[in-house]
């Protein structure tokens, strides 16, 4: 399709990758509309909100007063230089943004952590203690005959997950692919995306409290090994329902358990992820099964991956001593702020306005999309562009395998977070 020019310099684009959730759908069609962008095809509530946000280009500010970019950068550098332990948080940015913030944190002797690390750590702890068998989006889309959605409101986090991965009509392995079973293991999970869909055979609802999912999985694991479990109730579910679920798992040619760590917001939820993972491992002794972890919005996956390959650790790393120092509790930025162990917060939020910086009296440097509204006036505010809208970039998808190129879709004077961070580092 020929690009058509519009007044704001935006063209008509196909195969656009969307940075507004961890799935990174890349089949969007986006065109110009008035002074902004319009999602023409394959949009969802998140992508429409993100891409169609009007472009505003406020000036950088120091103490709430407009300044030049250079002045803001100089002030940010001064604050970092004088800080005892700067905290580099939020990290809602792309791969180059994470690269730049780690370089800056190294030079400035600070801590790096992502705003959504609490959720990601429900997975990281399992990776670091026992591991798992996982699959990826394309593999699940073509291969799975059984999906178990474990305690996660997937539809809210990823509005097109079911459409693209579960309800797809074509499969690589059959011209007439078998219908799929979808089990919702949890309370109040939105089933609307699979209800009445051609590809879906059966929908099974097992309303178990999120905190008790691990009990169900552990019991199935034990039953699978031939253990006897007393009682008629397992994790609050009738025993027959659990027996039935286990039978389905064993009969599946390729079952997939889906969970989204952000949905598992209760204490020690990593143990639930571990129960899922250990169950999946065991089923694999005789048939094929895999986990599929979702979530990872706001650039969380890119932040974990880049920090992983550059520092060896998945975030919550301090460079205060010059060496990477890793402590998943101590270097959680929320804790550092609470305990006043940091005296400066640099917060990056270049995707959605939801990634609001924490309400803290610790001085803050905010690198935010103009839609981010902090509770207090930051010491330094530098508006930045959104990767995949205002500038090009790359992000890592939620399955930690695929990464996608993001395009610049409109003329914008908003700098990338990466370029601002590099300038701050140079000015240190």
């Amino acid at each position, binding site marked *: 399709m020929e690009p058509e020019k519009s007044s704001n310099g935006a063209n008509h684009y196909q*195969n656009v990758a969307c940075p507004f959730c961890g799935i990174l759908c*890349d*089949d969007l069609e986006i065109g110009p509309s008035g002074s902004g962008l319009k999602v023409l095809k394959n949009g969802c509530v998140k992508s429409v909100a993100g891409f169609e946000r009007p472009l505003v280009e406020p000036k950088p500010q120091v103490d709430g007063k407009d300044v030049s970019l250079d002045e803001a950068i100089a002030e940010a550098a001064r604050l970092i230089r004088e800080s005892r332990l700067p905290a580099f948080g939020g990290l809602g940015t792309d*791969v*180059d943004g994470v*690269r730049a913030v780690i*370089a800056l944190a*190294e*030079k400035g002797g600070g801590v790096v952590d992502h705003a959504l690390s609490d959720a990601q750590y429900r997975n*990281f702890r399992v*990776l*670091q*203690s*026992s*591991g*798992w*068998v*996982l*699959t*990826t*989006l*394309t*593999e699940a*889309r*073509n*291969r799975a005959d059984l999906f178990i959605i474990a305690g996660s409101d997937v539809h809210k986090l990823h509005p097109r997950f079911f459409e*693209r991965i579960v309800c797809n009509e*074509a*499969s*690589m*392995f059959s011209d007439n692919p078998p219908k799929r079973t979808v089990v919702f293991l949890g309370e109040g999970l939105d089933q609307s995306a699979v209800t009445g869909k051609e590809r879906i055979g059966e929908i099974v609802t097992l309303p178990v409290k999120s905190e008790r999912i691990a009990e169900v999985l552990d019991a199935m694991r034990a039953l699978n090994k031939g253990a006897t479990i007393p009682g008629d109730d397992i994790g609050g579910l009738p025993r027959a329902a659990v027996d039935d679920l286990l039978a389905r798992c064993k009969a599946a*040619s*390729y079952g997939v358990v889906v969970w989204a760590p952000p949905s598992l917001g209760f204490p020690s939820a990593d143990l639930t992820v571990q129960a899922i993972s250990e169950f999946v491992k065991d089923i*694999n002794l005789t*048939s*094929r099964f*895999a986990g599929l972890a979702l979530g990872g919005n706001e650039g969380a996956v890119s932040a*974990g*991956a880049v920090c*992983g*390959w*550059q*520092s*060896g*650790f*998945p975030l919550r790393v301090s*460079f205060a*001593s*010059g*060496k*990477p120092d*890793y402590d998943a509790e101590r270097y959680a930025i929320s804790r550092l702020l609470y305990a006043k162990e940091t005296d400066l917060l640099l917060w990056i939020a270049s995707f959605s306005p939801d990634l609001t910086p924490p309400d803290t009296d610790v001085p803050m440097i905010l690198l935010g999309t103009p839609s981010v509204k902090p509770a207090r006036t930051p010491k330094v505010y530098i508006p930045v562009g959104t990767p995949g809208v205002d500038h090009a970039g*790359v992000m*890592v998808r939620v399955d*930690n*395998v*695929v*990464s*996608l*190129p993001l395009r610049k879709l409109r003329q914008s004077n908003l700098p990338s977070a990466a370029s601002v961070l590099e300038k701050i580092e140079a000015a240190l």
Partner: protein
Amino acid sequence: MLIKLTGGKVYDPANGVDGEVRDIFIENGRIVSPEPTAKVDHEYALHGRVIMAGGIDPHSHIGGGKMTIARMMLPEDHIGNEVARTELTRAGVGHAVPSTMTTGYRYAEMGYTAAFEPAMLPANARQAHMEMADTSIIDKGAFVMLGSDDFFLRQLAAKADFSAIKDYIAWTMHAAQAIAVKVVNPGGISAFKFNQRKLDLDEKHTYYGVTPRDIIVNLARGLNELGVVHPLHVHGCNLGVPGGYETTLATIKGAEGLPIHLTHIQFHSYGTEGDRKFSSAAAQIAEAVNANKNVSCDVGQVMFGQTCTASGDSMRQFVNTRSADPKKWVVMDIECDAGCGVVPFKYRDKSFVNALQWAIGLELFLLVNDPWRLFLTTDHPNGGPFTWYPHLIRLLMDKNFRRDMMQKINQDALQYSTLGSLDREYSLYEIAIMTRAGPAKSLGLVDRGHLGVGAWADITVYDDNPDREAMFTTPELLFKNGELIVRNGKIVKVVNGGTHVARPNYDPGIERSLKRYFEDFHTVRMDNFRLSDDEIINGGRGSLIIQPTRARAA
């Protein structure tokens, strides 16, 4: 600026130079032959020193998702192995699975100027290249994995026109920015997704009905006809299986004279003799390699201590999870494209099996007689981290040292290996072949791996220390593209290495079926799957080194 390296003993096998005292001149990054009257701007007096081209590691897992899984899984690999930031170098960590920048520094400090990631999944190519871009100093390149990807298996099962298969191979090399192609457990990674637990050379994939032999022959022939210099890089069936040597011999025979490279051949040289049904078949494998000039290999030497295995071979790695140490591991099915298995491992010198693995690797080194067809690797980090290379070189060059080391290992294991009877000692010339000239020739790296006029000045200068481990651990000088990077084992300058790629011709018509395939089945569009040159160059942080291919045949 004209630089002169004066009076060193030069080991440059590509040009037949075996320890001759020669002067080397460098200008504009390359080795030159200046006019006798030319003014030398800087001279290094290197009398008595040993000079070789920069080391080239043709098989080292340095970049890609499975390495970052390993890094994130193993904080215990890093804690105690942290490296502080300096004015020149970035912070980092790691022993078996070091962070990216640290990986680059360690290679440079060891006298190496290039390393090749051998298992880049097409679906993960972008991340692999981003990680390699963050691997400092050294040049990189990657072998793209084919053979368990559904597009290729569909082509094979449908008996597609062979030129279309070649088009797809070449397209994938372009799309993934690769220099070569690797096949891992041919068809087996896909078969595992269909719940097959083993796939022998002539066993059929339950869904596609093709065999590993079909896959190897098609890929090997395809690459040969595409004119790609490095032959098909084969991680065969039955890795680590006692008796697997028979598969390896059959694979060599099955290549029907086509060039193939058998990688980490140590893991594919196990017999079934003795009480433990585990023995060395290195002699049989070496005999076959010696007799078949179309075959090259690298060893994948096992070294004792903690490491982490990371492989595309999800089928075999799932079995190996039983031996995970510590007890955690990751196995993945990936994108109708490939898979991976990350399993930490500790090789123990007192273990019968591990000691025998160590002995088998050394036997292979000592029994294969042509160093141009045998490369020095530990399959980093699978057999052990690459930082073991100096120790390994000493094991090969110093039979007394080797005997001392043999005393320390499980003695029963030695009864099932011929190692004790082997007296061969490698010469510096042979080491230079195995670690420089041979890999450069095999990979088709123009102007690398040698010290002739016109070559890029990637040069390592060593003290001629009789303790070869000490010698190769700490080179005195390392030049990369003519710039001094390392002095006495310490980095004095940091540069960004380039990325080697090869670009065989293809008919762009293949994109019609690929585009439809991606749209129908995948979650990524073809245009986004493909990596652009700009992504590698990334505003000047990286660069592309396009290596030539021979003319495509048909």
